């Protein structure tokens, strides 16, 4: 078996690495876009704007987050895979685009909760002190609350990235070219199931394990600082 693994690797290493490239690219795009969208979702979720007794922005975002969290990611991928091409007449998004958008929205929901929790974990007294000095709510948020919230948010965000690396494997259902897609291709070509699977597993593990260790080191450094 070990020999077989070595053989598969020497024969197809470039496909594995291409797959890894796609996996990392997909998760990076997802988390970055997720951060940007998630940040605004978090702000909307926390907005105090009221119409009567309801907070429309907060309610809509709340509903979105619950739906994303309450349905399987695979279902969401299918949904956008079928929905997006039909949605706009003159636009024919590629598979990769559909899947990326679905992943981004999924990640945005989780990231928005991370950001919201990080902001709300900053003591209320900090905002009060800032407001008492004459800062308006935006200035208090930017200069006092956010710099402290980043400390809470950053490690959780990196963990979200690690999770996303694994979650993107679901995209192989649509053959978008990431690691699990490559696995399917290679195992189909070789009629071998276990050996390429072990290689793919090792690649996933090495990447996520070392990233998790980095996050841990970062957390330690942050708590050691001021």
């Amino acid at each position, binding site marked *: 078996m070990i020999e077989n693994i070595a053989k598969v690797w020497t024969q197809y290493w470039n496909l594995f690495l291409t797959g890894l490239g796609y996996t990392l690219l997909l998760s990076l795009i997802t988390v970055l876009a997720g951060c940007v969208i998630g940040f605004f979702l978090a702000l909307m979720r926390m907005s105090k704007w009221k119409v009567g007794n309801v907070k429309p922005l907060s309610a809509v975002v709340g509903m979105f987050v619950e739906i994303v969290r309450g349905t399987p990611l695979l279902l969401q991928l299918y949904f956008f895979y079928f929905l997006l091409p039909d949605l706009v007449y003159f636009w024919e998004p590629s598979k990769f685009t559909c899947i990326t958008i679905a992943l981004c929205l999924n990640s945005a929901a989780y990231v928005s909760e991370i950001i919201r929790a990080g902001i709300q974990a900053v*003591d209320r*007294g*900090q905002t*009060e*002190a*800032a*407001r*008492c*000095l*004459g*800062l*308006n709510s935006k*200035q208090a948020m930017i*200069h*006092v609350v956010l*710099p*402290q919230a980043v*400390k809470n948010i950053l490690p959780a965000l990196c963990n979200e990235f690690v999770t996303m690396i694994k979650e993107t494997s679901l995209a192989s259902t649509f053959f978008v070219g990431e690691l699990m897609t490559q696995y399917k291709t290679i195992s189909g070509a070789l009629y071998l199931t276990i050996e390429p699977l072990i290689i793919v597993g090792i690649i996933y593990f090495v990447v996520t394990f070392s990233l998790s260790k980095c996050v841990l080191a970062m957390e330690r450094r942050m708590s050691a600082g*001021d």
Partner: protein
Amino acid sequence: MTDKELLKVENLHKKFGDLHVLKGVTEHITQGEVVSVIGPSGGGKSTFLRCLNLLEIPDEGKIYFEGVDITDKKVDINVHRQKMGMVFQHFNVFPNMTVGQNITMAPVLLGKKSQKEADEMAAELLNRVGLLEKINEYPKRLSGGQKQRLAIVRALAMEPDVMLFDEPTSALDPEMVGEVLAVIKELVKTGMTTVIVTHEMGFAREVSDRVFFMDGGIIAEKGTPEEIFGNPQNPRTKEFLGKVLY
């Protein structure tokens, strides 16, 4: 003491849900006056103080600061808050900034001072409260008493017209109470208008021009320290002082 009214409160009401915390407070505080607010927990002292700079929005009533009705929705409260310094029970210093930055952030950000002017002022203020050598430290390295002294000079850096203290020594270890009270005493000597919610009866008696005894959401009794501590009239005041002065 001049007779200029600095703060005037009319029929102030505040509810938290079903809890009616302030039940119609009407009072005025003149320029240069030092007022202590005492009373049992839940009597509305802190809420009263926090209403003065609209940290709590009153449900009813008006608050005039330097002649302006700050409860008016059209008034930019941020401008008026710059003139009202506030010190909290739990210090609320900014842990992500150095001691110096804690002081200079607001004056620079709000365009009151250049960074250079603010730095000079920070050094001078810190020197006054004996924290100059800590200017580049982070608050994590300060004791509770030092944090509270920093919080006081941070508020002073905005050159306020009134200082509000919300139980400034209640969260301190006993041996640190003195150093904070000493700073407040020095401040009072400069003629700063001061409203202080406190459980330090000896201190209230010593520095105040007037004392408010708050209970049940109203100012149940008010007067000079001699009147309140020496010869209280209201039975509730008597009972409270009987419990705390032993």
